[in-house]
């Protein structure tokens, strides 16, 4: 395709063209070589990854039918003519969701765990974000760097690992899960809060300090009113993420609906798996919608 077009041009034009063509061919060869090289590196990585994780086409091929089979078993068998019949009739919605009351209560517990953890994480993040902000700590680079590193440490370890450890210290139950999610949230929110503070307008701070206010006054009356709407919206986003996290933190015995989900998956109570997962999806979507509305209102009120 390209060759034809260039052939026409070569015939039409004169002397500089062969030189240009040669340069173009040279460039194209270099590019093709680079593409080939990176492609080879990529394929080598892929092969190494397949070898490391013991995944090869044969295992995948033998696994896929079992996946289809399993997810088919999980799906509820609903029959249209008895869809709204009582919980005793096989094929009805009520039969599928026969423990809806218990699961709804567990889902509520999970949401409360996520809410409390988000609250604790927000408070801790709020406390740590000011010393972590470079614009509020002039001449104290060391402090802000140390606080930043700590926040990074807090958010790099996943909440479920904290939960595994805290279950030993605080015992099995929601408390360990709440604290685990709160620890992770502290790191994540502290960083976002600190970024909001660093982007705040510094002139109100100067005004407060010039009129004799202390550092705490400056933070309270010059920074917080500027960044609070942003912080609230970050905290709401975090609540969504934490609800998702809280739904699985029960896998390691740290409370919530995860424990029930772990049991029904492990004991192969197929249809109950889809029922609980559906409840989780509904809860997450609901929180998603509500928090989106509130976030738009907060940001709208500020603008």
């Amino acid at each position: 395709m390209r060759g034809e077009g260039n052939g026409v041009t070569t015939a039409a034009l004169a002397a500089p063209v062969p030189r240009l063509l040669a340069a173009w061919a040279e460039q194209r060869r270099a590019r093709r070589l680079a593409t080939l090289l990176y492609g080879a590196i990529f394929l080598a990585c892929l092969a190494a990854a397949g070898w490391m994780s013991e995944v090869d086409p044969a295992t995948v091929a033998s696994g896929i039918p079992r996946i289809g089979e399993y997810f088919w078993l999980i799906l509820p068998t609903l029959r249209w003519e008895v869809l709204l019949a009582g919980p005793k009739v096989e094929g009805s919605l009520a039969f599928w969701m026969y423990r809806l009351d218990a699961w709804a209560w567990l889902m509520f517990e999970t949401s409360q765990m996520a809410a409390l953890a988000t609250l604790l994480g927000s408070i801790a993040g709020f406390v740590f974000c000011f010393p972590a902000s470079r614009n509020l700590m002039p001449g104290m680079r060391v402090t802000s760097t140390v606080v930043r590193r700590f926040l990074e440490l807090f958010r790099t370890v996943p909440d479920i690992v904290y939960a595994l450890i805290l279950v030993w210290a605080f015992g099995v139950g929601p408390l360990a899960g709440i604290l685990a999610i709160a620890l992770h949230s502290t790191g994540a929110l502290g960083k976002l809060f600190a970024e909001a503070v660093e982007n705040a307008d510094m002139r109100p701070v100067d005004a407060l300090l010039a009129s004799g206010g202390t550092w705490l006054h400056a933070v309270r009356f010059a920074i917080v009113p500027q960044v609070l709407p942003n912080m609230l919206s970050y905290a709401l986003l975090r609540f969504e993420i934490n609800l998702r996290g809280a739904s699985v933190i029960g896998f390691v015995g740290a409370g919530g609906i995860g424990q029930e989900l772990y049991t029904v998956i492990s004991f192969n109570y197929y249809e109950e798996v889809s029922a609980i997962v559906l409840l989780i999806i509904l809860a997450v979507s609901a929180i998603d919608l509500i928090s989106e509305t509130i976030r738009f209102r907060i940001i709208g009120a500020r603008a």
Partner: protein
Amino acid sequence: MTPGLAAIDREAVEAARRRLPAAFGATPARRALRAGLWLAFLAWLGALAVWFEITPQRLWNGIGGVATILRLMVPPSPGEHLDDILKGLGESVAMAFLGTVLAAAAAVPLGFLGARNIAASLAFRFSLRRVFDGFRGIDQLIWALAYVRAVGLGPLAGVLAIFTADIAVLAKLYAEAIENAEQRQKEGVKAAGAPRVLVMRFGLLPQVLPVLLAQALYFFESNTRSAAILGIVGAGGIGLQIAERIRIRAWDEVAFILILILVTVAAIDWLSARIRLRLIGGAA
């Protein structure tokens, strides 16, 4: 002052108060509402404390337990199974890589289907995006646990879990990248008389490919973190080692594994940032 004037003044003030109630400070109703909300908040906290059995005693004991664990974590030690730990770590990175590559490969056609300027049917696009959103609500660990039941213990379950959890989000991002592509380049290639396949190859692909690859790299970074915990439910990788060491309370080994994960994650982040910079720099 005549009574008439005073009446007018009071009326004027009342009118102003009605018009701009906020200028006169918080109204009693607003103050009562505020106090009520604080009370409700405190009552909620109290109820949760009772429900979840959060007592000062329990908190104090727990903090003591954490202090003991932290003390036992120092100094971190690899224990006797350094080879197992390194193998688990490699397995985690490999799972993240394979899962991301597969998800990205599958997300490309889905992204084309979901993009506005490619797929015309609005209802189809809307339902596709709803399905994407629904999938997003399911945590990766749930997928991992389900796949462990389906295909057995091991890294294959982890790869599949990463693949399934990512594909919806990646497809959504890809659809947006394809929608945001410049139309004029496509029109230019088309005007030169190229068939549809070549319009895609020379008009669209050079624009979107760097973006698609950069997104996939971001997902690879985030998946390296999550692949480290999938082993907790038996889906392969270093998570199994963490869970085992915590179960036998070998805290120094736990600390060693955690530090190793932090270092690996930082290294992958660095590498991926380099590649991303090169890709996007090459496109500009």
